[in-house]
């Protein structure tokens, strides 16, 4: 009797192992949280120093057109206008997403709806291969193939938004494609069956039913691709020309937030204005990727299949 009572009152082995498991996953969660918070805190502290320690007007920073932190401008303040970089980043991101989207949707539809067997056999590995190529390789190809091509066809020096768009388009294509393909796969089979049963052709089914039902997922995929394009540094830096000028046209050298960051950080001294200004750019980048995340969340919540 006592033995049974004892056994019942003790925590069982299953409970203990469950507690242990919960503890371990909790630890992992805490660790990641700490890392994320530390990064945010560090970048924010450094990035805000430009405004609090060096007394740069936030609006001047966001709307100024001259980036030359070691030179004092007309108003006696250092020239830290980040507008050219912000515009450059957004232009490249939007354009590459714009070019990549039709290709991605086309590939995904082909893979899922038109030729599922061959598509899965050939296209899937190919797109996955594209994901694995290091960005420096893309940049190198961009420099030795895309830049001369753009120079011959469109004139100018070949460095600029257009070359950056071409390179980034290939880089984000696999991300958008594979995410779109996943969404198409998750559209329930009976949607298609119902549509076909009503006498719709395959094209009508794809166009009006499958793509319509998958729209939120496709949007999420595009925003994901944009987030990647926005944050890409190395490949873009190699082909964009890195001139801190507002782009006149698509083939004039310009710059992105990331390209100015990677280029400048080694040539400045920690704690100086030049360095703080770069951290402010990093803060803008971080805020933007946070913004992209929020958008993905909102789309995901609003567009759940009902």
């Amino acid at each position, binding site marked *: 009797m006592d033995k049974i009572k004892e056994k019942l009152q003790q925590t069982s082995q299953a409970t203990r192992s469950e507690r242990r498991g919960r503890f371990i996953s909790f630890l992992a969660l805490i660790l990641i949280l700490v890392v994320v918070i530390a990064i945010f805190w560090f970048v924010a502290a450094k990035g805000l120093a430009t405004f609090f320690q060096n007394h740069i007007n936030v609006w001047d920073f966001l709307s100024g057109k001259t980036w030359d932190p070691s030179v004092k401008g007309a108003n006696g303040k250092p020239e830290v206008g980040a507008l050219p970089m912000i515009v450059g980043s957004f232009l490249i991101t939007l354009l590459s997403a714009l070019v990549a989207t039709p290709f991605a949707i086309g590939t995904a539809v082909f893979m899922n709806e038109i030729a599922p067997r061959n598509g899965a056999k050939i296209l899937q590995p190919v797109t996955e291969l594209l994901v694995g190529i290091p960005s420096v390789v893309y940049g190198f190809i961009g420099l030795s193939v895309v830049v001369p091509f753009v120079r011959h066809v469109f004139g100018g020096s070949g460095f600029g938004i257009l070359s950056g768009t071409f390179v980034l388009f290939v880089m984000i294509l696999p991300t958008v494609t594979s995410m779109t393909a996943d969404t198409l796969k998750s559209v329930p089979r009976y949607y298609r069956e119902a549509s076909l049963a009503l006498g719709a052709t395959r094209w009508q089914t794809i166009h009006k039913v499958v793509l319509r039902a998958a729209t939120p997922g496709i949007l999420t995929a595009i925003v994901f691709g944009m987030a990647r394009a926005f944050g890409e540094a190395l490949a873009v830096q190699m082909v964009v020309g890195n001139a801190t000028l507002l782009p006149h046209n698509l083939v004039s050298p310009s710059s992105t937030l990331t390209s100015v960051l990677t280029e400048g950080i*080694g040539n400045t*001294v920690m704690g100086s204005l030049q360095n703080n200004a770069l951290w402010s750019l990093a803060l803008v980048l971080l805020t933007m990727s946070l913004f992209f995340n929020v958008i993905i969340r909102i789309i995901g919540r609003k567009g759940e299949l009902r």
Partner: protein
Amino acid sequence: MNKRRIAGVALFLIAVGGLLGLGYQTRNRSSAGGSITTVGSTALQPLVEAAGEQFSGDHLGVFINVQGGGSGTGLSQIQEGAVAIGNSDVFAEEQSGIHSHNLVDHRVAVVGIVPIINKEVGLKTLTTAQLQKVFDGTYTNWRELGGKNVPITIVNRAQGSGTRATFEKWALRGHHVKTAQEQDSSGMVRSIVSTTPGAISYVAFSYANKTVQKVAINGVTPTNQNVTSNKWQVWSYEHMYTNGRPKGVAKSFLNYIESPKIQSTLVRQLGYISISQMHVERDVKGRVTVIR
């Protein structure tokens, strides 16, 4: 089940332990006096690397860690005392954010810098005034300077690069330049100038090879000889800074680099100009004195 779990845990512990052990074995022993770290200027990096290798060959168990990162990084790291030697293309006094009074300067080499243009342009010499007007955007086509009818494409080094600072100070005489495209390495600049019609930029002598056209300034040709006599004024010292007087390995390594053995072999082979060859000396304010 239990055995598998024990094996799993053991494997995990071995992996973590092994990693930590490896890190411990290969840890930086700068405090123990066995090795030192130098960081900074990428222009000076090849020399320090080569000299460091030879130095370790002569002194068993001593390692010279050489890292790039740029002159700014070199100066800030040495100011914080994080490394033994900070390499820089510019005087510490010229870099904002550096309090130079603690830093001791060791000049180990001289680098000449030369404007380079694409070979198709068809020009071989420019005056200072012409250079200034090319870089501030007054001229937009090489035709205006007697060259071929191609638009001028300016390729700059990154803001804060030592090469750029030297070029703007001594070739353009501090003239304000227009914002143009920037590249963060000399090799990249050279390949862009060699392939882009009408491109102009500037690199250290050692980077200017046959794929690009070197430009004489005011009729003076860019040769080592002209640098040593200061006839070619676009040059800079390569500095190795220590925080306070150098001690231990740092001291003997600096002596090694400054020794005639290295100055007459490695320094020249790698395209630098030896300090001992210089007939003039230039201080941070740009005053030139003749060495007797």
